[in-house]
C-alpha cells in the first residue's frame, strides 16, 4: 500500500471483497431490534388470530361443546348448502362496490363544488366533516329514524309531492342495501372530500391555464385534466372506501340490523349474529371467508388503481 494521504472513512475502507460502501453501519445505526415492539404486537394481536382463523374454521368449536375437534370442511359445506355463504358474500360485495362508488362521487363532487377558498366554502367544508366525526352507529340511528315510513324524509318529499309519501326506505328487500350504502357514503364523504381537495391543490396552475388557453370549458378541463391528475387521491379514497366497507358493520347494524329478511346482512353482521348464538366455528369460517375475499380483491384493485397513476 502506498501512502494514504487522507484517512479513508470506515465505509470505504478496503476489505477482502474490495471497496464496499456502508459496511455493517446499518446494524449499529438502524438496529433491527427497534422493530421488535411493533412487530411483537402486530404478530401476537393481528397475525396470530389470522393464522388461528385458518385452523379453527375447520373445527367444531362452539359454546355448546367443551372440547374442540377437527371436522374438516364441514362448516364450509353446511354454510354453502344453506345458501348463507353465497348470500353473505354477494351482499357484502354489492355493498362495498356501492359505497366505493358513492363515497367517491360525493367526495369528489363536494371537493369540486367547494374548491375555491371562499368563506362560504370553508364553512361548508367544516359542516360536511361533522358526519365523519360522528360514530357510524350514531349516524345509522339518525337515518333509521329519518327513513321510517312516517319519518322526516317522507315528510319532506310529501311537501314537494303535495300528498302523503310513505316510501318504506328501509323495508325493501331489493333496494334497502343501496340506501344503507348511501348512508355510509354520506357519513364518510367529508373525509374523501378533504383528500380530493388536497389533491386538487397539487394540480399546477399552469396546466390549468394551458387548458383554458386551448379553449377547454369547465367540464372538459375536469375530465381531461383534473381527474387524471387526481389519480393518487382516487387510489387512496377508492381503495379505503371499498376495502374498508367490506369490513363494515356499524352503519348497517344501526340502520337495518341486517334486515329486511337478511338482505343487508353483510359478512360482519352475520359473524356478529352467529357469534352471539355461540357457533364460534361457523363465525370463524365466515371470518376466514371475509379475509380471503379482501385478499383476493385487494391486489388487482390496488394494482389497477396504481397503474392509473402513471398517466403521465
Amino acid at each position, binding site marked *: 500500500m502506498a501512502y494514504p494521504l487522507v484517512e479513508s472513512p470506515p465505509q470505504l475502507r478496503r476489505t477482502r471483497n474490495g471497496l464496499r460502501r456502508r459496511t455493517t453501519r446499518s446494524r449499529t445505526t438502524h438496529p433491527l431490534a427497534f422493530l421488535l415492539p411493533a412487530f411483537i404486537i402486530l404478530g401476537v394481536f393481528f397475525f396470530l388470530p389470522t393464522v*388461528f382463523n385458518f385452523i379453527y374454521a375447520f373445527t367444531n368449536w362452539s359454546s355448546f361443546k367443551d372440547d374442540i375437534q377437527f371436522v374438516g370442511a364441514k362448516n364450509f359445506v353446511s354454510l354453502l348448502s344453506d345458501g348463507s355463504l353465497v348470500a353473505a358474500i354477494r351482499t357484502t360485495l354489492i355493498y362495498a362496490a356501492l359505497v366505493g362508488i358513492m363515497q367517491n362521487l360525493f367526495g369528489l363532487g363536494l371537493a369540486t363544488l367547494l374548491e375555491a377558498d371562499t368563506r362560504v366554502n370553508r364553512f361548508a367544508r367544516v359542516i360536511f366533516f361533522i358526519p365523519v366525526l*360522528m360514530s357510524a352507529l350514531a349516524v345509522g340511528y339518525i337515518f333509521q329514524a329519518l327513513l321510517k315510513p312516517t319519518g322526516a324524509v317522507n315528510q319532506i318529499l310529501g311537501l314537494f309531492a303535495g300528498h302523503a309519501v310513505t316510501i318504506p326506505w328501509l323495508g325493501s328487500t331489493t333496494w334497502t342495501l343501496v340506501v344503507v350504502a348511501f348512508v355510509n357514503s*354520506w357519513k364518510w364523504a367529508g373525509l374523501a372530500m378533504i383528500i380530493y381537495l388536497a389533491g386538487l391543490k397539487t394540480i399546477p396552475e399552469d396546466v390549468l391555464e394551458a387548458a383554458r388557453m386551448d379553449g377547454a370549458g369547465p367540464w372538459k378541463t375536469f375530465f381531461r385534466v383534473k381527474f387524471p391528475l387526481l389519480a393518487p387521491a382516487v387510489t387512496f379514497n377508492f381503495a379505503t372506501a371499498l376495502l374498508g366497507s367490506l369490513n363494515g358493520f356499524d352503519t348497517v347494524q344501526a340502520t337495518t340490523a341486517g334486515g329486511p329478511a337478511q338482505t343487508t346482512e353483510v359478512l360482519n353482521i352475520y359473524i356478529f349474529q352467529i357469534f352471539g348464538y355461540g357457533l364460534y366455528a361457523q363465525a370463524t369460517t365466515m371470518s376466514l371467508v371475509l379475509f380471503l375475499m379482501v385478499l383476493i380483491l385487494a391486489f388487482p384493485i*390496488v394494482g389497477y388503481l396504481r397503474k392509473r397513476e402513471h398517466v403521465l
Partner: protein
Amino acid sequence: MWSRYLQPVVAIVLCLAAVGVPLWLALITSAKSQGEANIPNLALPTRWHLLDNYSTAFTQGQVWAGLLGSLLVMVPSVIGVILFGSIASWILARRGSRLAAVLYAAAISGVILPPAVVTLVLLLRQLGLASTPTGMIFVYTGMYMSIVIFFITGFVRTIPIELEEAARLDGAGPMRVFFSVIFPLLRPVIATATILVCLYIWNDVFYSFFVLGGGKTTTLQLNLFQIASSNLYQNNWNLIFAYVVISSLPLLVVFIVAQRRIISGITGGAVK
C-alpha cells in the same frame, strides 16, 4: 354568475339538506317526550324535555363510565401505536435490504386485511385479557399499527439522512438520533396518524363489542349500542338521540376548537 351567486347558494342548500336536516332531527327528538319522539318528524317538540332526557341518559346510560372507558382504551393505544410504529417505520425506511422490504409489506398488510375478531377473542381468553381494557389496548394497537407504519415510512424517506449522520458524528446512539432528530420532524404525519387513529378508536363499536363485551369496562359507543338495542328502550327514540348527541359531542368539541389544525393535519401528512 355561477361563482358569485349560484355556487354559494347551492353549497348552503346542500349543507342544510344533507347535514342540517339529520342533525336537526337528532337534536329536537332528543328534546321530545317519549310519545312524541316515536314519530320522527321535523316538528319542534310541544314541550321541551331536554333536561329530563339528558339526565336520564347520563344516569341510566352511564355517560361518565362510557367517557372514561373510551379515554382509557384510546389514549394508551394511540401512544403505543405512534411510538412503536414510528420507530419501526424509521428502521424500515432507512434499511434497504430485502428483509426490510418483506417486513414492510407484512407490516402494512393490516391496512387492507381485516382483523380476525373471533379468534382474537379466543386468543385474549387464553392470555387472560378477555373483557379487559388492557386487552382492548393491545388489540387496537395491533389493528392500527399498519396504517401508522404506512404513513410514517413514506414520510421518513423524505428526511435527509445527512441530519442523522450529523447527530451520529456528535456521538449520538440510535435512540438519541431517533428522538432528537427524526421524531420532531415527523410532526405533520404524526398529527395525521393520531387524528385518524383517534377517530377510528373513539367511534368503534364492532371490535370493542367483541373484546370488552361482558366485562366491566364500557365505552360511549358501546353504551349507545346497548341503549338502542335493548328491548326495554326499543321505542325510546328521545333517549337514544340524547345519547347520540352526548356521544358525538367530545369529538365535535375537539374539532371545533382545533379545526384548522385537524384538517391541515390530515392533508399534510397524507400528501406524500
